[in-house]
C-alpha cells in the first residue's frame, strides 16, 4: 500500500513500539513500565536505553557519563556556548538560549557533524582491517576524499587535554582495550608517522569508546547530543546575571566592511 491509501491508514493514531503516556495510570518506555521496571535507573542509562534499547553495565554507564562531562566547558567564547550566553545578555529565556546552543552544536567542523563521521570512519576502518585491508591506505583514502579526518586534528588547538583523563578512566573501567580504541590509537600513530601530523582528538576517542560499546553511527550521534549541555548553562547564567547587553558588545568600528562603497538607492540604474 502506498500514496494516499497508505497515509489514510496512519490517520489519527500513533502506532508505537517506543512508548506512551497513559496519563493517570502509567508510562511505558520501550515496552517497560517507567515507574516500575525502570525505577531507579540512572538518567544517562535511561537516555541510552531510549536510543539503543540496550542496557549497559555500571562501568559502561560511568564511561558514557565521562564522555559528556569531559567536554562540558563553560567558556562563553566557544561558538555554541556563545549562543546561550548571548541569549542571557539579551534577556531571552534560558530554555531558548540553551536549546539554540544545542542545535548549533550540530556543526560541520565540530560537534555532531564530526561525531557521526568519526564513528562511521572507525567502524568502516575496523571492518576494512578485519577483512585484511590496510589501515594506512584507508586513512589516506579518507583524507584524500574529505581533506580531513573526523576524530583527528582540532580546529583551534594542536593538543587535546581531554584525551589523557578519558583514557585513564577507560583503563580503570577495563574499557580501554576494545578494538575500536586500539584502532583509533593505531591510526594516530600512522598519521603522526606520515606527513599528516594529525593527533587523535576527543571526538575520535569518544567515538571509538562508543563503537566498542556497540553504538551505531546514528545511535552515537543521538547519544552525544547533550554532550556540551552542562557547560552551556553557566554561560547563560553569568550573562544573565551581569548587566544586559554587556557581553561581547560591538562598536560600529568592530564592523570591518569589505563590500561595495556607498551608492545611492534613488539614482540606481
Amino acid at each position: 500500500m502506498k500514496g494516499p491509501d497508505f497515509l489514510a491508514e496512519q490517520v489519527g493514531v500513533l502506532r508505537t513500539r517506543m512508548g506512551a503516556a497513559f496519563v493517570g495510570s502509567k508510562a511505558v518506555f520501550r515496552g517497560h513500565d517507567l515507574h516500575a521496571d525502570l525505577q531507579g535507573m540512572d538518567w544517562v542509562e535511561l537516555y541510552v536505553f531510549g536510543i539503543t534499547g540496550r542496557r549497559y553495565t555500571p562501568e559502561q554507564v560511568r564511561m558514557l557519563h565521562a564522555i559528556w562531562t569531559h567536554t562540558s566547558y563553560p567558556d562563553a567564547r566557544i561558538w555554541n556556548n556563545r549562543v546561550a550566553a548571548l541569549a542571557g545578555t539579551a534577556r531571552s529565556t534560558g530554555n531558548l538560549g540553551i536549546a539554540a546552543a544545542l542545535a548549533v552544536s550540530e556543526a560541520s567542523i565540530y560537534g555532531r557533524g564530526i561525531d557521526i563521521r568519526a564513528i562511521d570512519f572507525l567502524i568502516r576502518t575496523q571492518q576494512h582491517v578485519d577483512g585484511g585491508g590496510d589501515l594506512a591506505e584507508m586513512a589516506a583514502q579518507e583524507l584524500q576524499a574529505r581533506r580531513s579526518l573526523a576524530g583527528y586534528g582540532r580546529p583551534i588547538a594542536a593538543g587535546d587535554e581531554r584525551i589523557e583523563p578519558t583514557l585513564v578512566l577507560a583503563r580503570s573501567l577495563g574499557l580501554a582495550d576494545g578494538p575500536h580504541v586500539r584502532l583509533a590509537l593505531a591510526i594516530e600513530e600512522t598519521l603522526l608517522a606520515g606527513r599528516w601530523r594529525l593527533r587523535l582528538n576527543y571526538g575520535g576517542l569518544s567515538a571509538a569508546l562508543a563503537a566498542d560499546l556497540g553504538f551505531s553511527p546514528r545511535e552515537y550521534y543521538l547519544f552525544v547530543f547533550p554532550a556540551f549541555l552542562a557547560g552551556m548553562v553557566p554561560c547563560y547564567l553569568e550573562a544573565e546575571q551581569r548587566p544586559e547587553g554587556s557581553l561581547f558588545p560591538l562598536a560600529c568600528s568592530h564592523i570591518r566592511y569589505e563590500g561595495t562603497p556607498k551608492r545611492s538607492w534613488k539614482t540606481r540604474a
Partner: protein
Amino acid sequence: MTADAIRTRIWREEPESGNPFAARAAYCRGYDVYGEMLGRARWVEMLILLFREETPTKAEADLLEALAVALANPGPRDPAVHAAMAGGVGGSTAASCLMAALAVGAGQYAGGREVYLAMEAWNACGTDLDAWRRRFAAPTSEEVSIWPAPQHPPGFDPHGVSTPTPVKQALAGLAFVSPGPRLPWLEQQRAELEAATGLPLALSGVAAAAFADLGFSPEQGEMLHLLLRLPGAAAHALEQRGYGHKKFPFFAVELEGAGA
C-alpha cells in the same frame, strides 16, 4: 580598526558622535538603509540585496514576491506548521514555536533540506532532461551525515499520485514572471520529470527552481525557504493558543510489541 572585528561585505555602520555603540547610519551593500531605502525599497528587494551584491531586476523582485506568497503558509496539515501549533497550544514562547517550525521544516520531506538537495540537482542537471533521468536512476549517496538518508527524489511528493492543483498554479504563476530558464523549462517538462521519478512534483520542487532562477546557491535557497514559510507557522501557533489544548487533536495510541 580592532583585532576583534567582524568582516562583512553586507553591512556598514557609522557611529553617532559620542556613542560608538549606536549607529548614525547603516548601509546595506552600500545603500543607506534608513536614509534612502526605507519607504522606497520593496521588502523583497531588501531580501535579495542581503544575499547578493546587486539589486534585483523588477522581474526578479516580482518572482521572489510571488514565491513568498506561495510559501507563506504551508497550512496546518504541514508538519512544520503542526509543530508550531504544538508549541502554541501549550503556551510555549513565540520563539520556540518558530524554532519548532524551523526544525521540522528543515527536513528532506517538504523542508529546507529538500530544497537544498533539489537545487543541487538543478546545478548538476540544468535544463537537460537526460541528465535529470540519469540522476533519478543513480543510487543515492550512502555517505553518513547528520541528515537521515534521503528516501525520495528531492522536489517530488513521495506520497502523491498526481500533481496538486496549487503546485500547478504556483508553477504556472512563477514561470510566467520568472526571468528563467528553469521555471519555464520545468513547466514544459513537468510530465516527463514526473514520469521519470514516478512521483508528482511538490511545491518544494517549484521553490527550488524559483530560487535557482533568482541566482541563489543551494545554501541560500535553503535559508530563504526556511524563512519564507514562517509567517503561516506564526499565525497558526497563535491561533491554536487561542483555541486551547482541548480543541487540538491529541490522537489515539496503539502500543506494538512488548509494551502492548
